[in-house]
């Protein structure tokens, strides 16, 4: 169904040109919201909680809203079962990165039959990163992932925005931040979290 753009330029009807009826109908809408929300707030103060809240606000620093699982949040480097990084320093992510924010220096992995390389340096400059997720798609080893649920990335200096290998390896996925689904794909929980 498309919207007929010409409808927007219809001349006003006589009723609309009178100003006051349409102003009153607009006022009725906002006043209805005011009365309903004020009722809910008053009852909350008196200790009665209604099913519908008086506002849709999530009080952010104290409460966090659930994130969609596909949301791209801060990167992390996944580990193997023995704790070594999954990354094989193939430079695929560095090549795919349109913002050129990844910097990798490879070194030889000793005493391992299959894996030949590991990163010696793996830096991501978050000041440059555009969170496009191409690095995640490019990675053949599923080593770089964006599922930490960390959104608050801020620093006083540009150098502080550079995440090195040790930091990225320490990060873990935070499933509580995301909307949970069951096997059938139905939403299980979308609860608003109390901060830490």
């Amino acid at each position, binding site marked *: 169904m498309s919207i007929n753009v010409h409808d927007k330029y219809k001349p006003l009807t006589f009723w609309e040109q009178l*100003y*006051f009826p349409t*102003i009153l109908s*607009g*006022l009725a*809408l*906002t*006043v209805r*919201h*005011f009365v309903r*929300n*004020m009722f809910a*707030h008053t009852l909350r103060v008196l200790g009665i909680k209604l099913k519908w809240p*008086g*506002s*849709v*606000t999530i*009080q952010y620093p104290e409460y966090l809203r659930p994130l969609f699982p596909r949301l791209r949040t801060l990167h992390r480097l996944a580990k193997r079962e023995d704790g070594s990084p999954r990354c094989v320093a193939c430079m695929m992510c560095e090549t795919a990165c349109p913002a050129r924010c990844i910097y990798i220096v490879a070194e030889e992995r000793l005493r391992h039959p299959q894996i030949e390389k590991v990163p010696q340096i793996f830096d991501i400059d978050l000041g440059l990163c555009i969170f496009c997720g191409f690095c995640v798609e490019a990675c053949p080893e599923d080593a770089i992932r964006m599922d930490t649920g960390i959104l608050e990335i801020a620093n006083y200096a540009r150098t502080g925005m550079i995440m090195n290998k040790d930091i990225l390896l320490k990060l873990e996925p935070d499933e509580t931040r995301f909307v949970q689904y069951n096997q059938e794909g139905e939403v299980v929980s979308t609860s608003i979290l109390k901060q830490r």
Partner: protein
Amino acid sequence: MAEGIGIILLKFGFILLFALGLGGLLTWVERKQSAIMQDRIGANRASIFGLRLIGLFHPLADAIKMFTKESFTPASAEKFLFTLAPAISVFFALIGFAVIPFGDKLIFGDTVVNLQVAPLNVGLLYLFAVAGLAVYGVVLGAWASRNNYAMLGGMRAAAQMISYEVALGVTIFGSIMIYQTVDLQQIVHLQGGTFWGWLPAWGIFMQPLGFILFLTVGIAETKRVPFDAPEGESEIIGYFIEYSGMGFGMYFLTDFVETVMISAITVTLFFGGWQVPYLLADGFHFPWGEVWLLNNWTVALFQIASFSLKVMFFLWLQMAIRWTLPRFRYDQILRLGWKYILPISLLNIVLTGIVIMVLK
């Protein structure tokens, strides 16, 4: 016995506190009411020792910020007028309250106190004079800051306020024709009593069209949304663009005090001022014959409370209108003022005249 200077000063202090207190509180009301209308919570972060009190400290925080901020004067500004203009603006907004009656008579020993700061017999004309001077603060400030945007805002304010000044005078003529007086205390007295024994004899039942027109023009006079073309924060920022600190604060306060002022005049002219339905000077006389006798002090308290409640209702209504409607375009404002409101208010005068003639 005549009132002493002390009693006059007390009345003066009361009405000043009333206007300034409500004006200050309106910054909180504006935040909270708009939030509740839009399904939000609104400002609630300012706290003293962790006590938030539903955001009531935000006006206080605002005041501290305004007073401690640097009051900057641009190098090319006309320094004397630039400093004077906000004061003029807030002064003319405040002195209008002198003629607003907020109660009948308070008997105090052998002194009869008229609950009105200045019992002027030309009260309504005085109000028009004050409202007409209010534009000077705006235009002076805009002109003295020597900024093109401020200048545009000032010109818009002049055009808007002067065209609505005319309509403001004409919308009131209907009420003056009915009450045959411009003394506000007397107008309120004439709104006592009832129609057909049960309907309070308030002005709105005699001047419904006049009431709607007056409220529209009144909101236009306060320069707030939907009539905030002089400010127009998304296009020209407005006549106070060069003001910072308390200079800006005074202009801001003026808008709120004028909102209180318009509410007070609306209540006085159309909603019986301090009149409580069925309350006479000696107590309640209900239409079903019951009588509750009250002493003079209780009656006065009822009257002051009634006046305050009515004013607060109209503040609420003005806030609701302000947060419902978008800004009119500049040409729409002038067209509405000159081509619709002025002719309709002239028609209102004619209709009122015909009705008065027929009833005689």
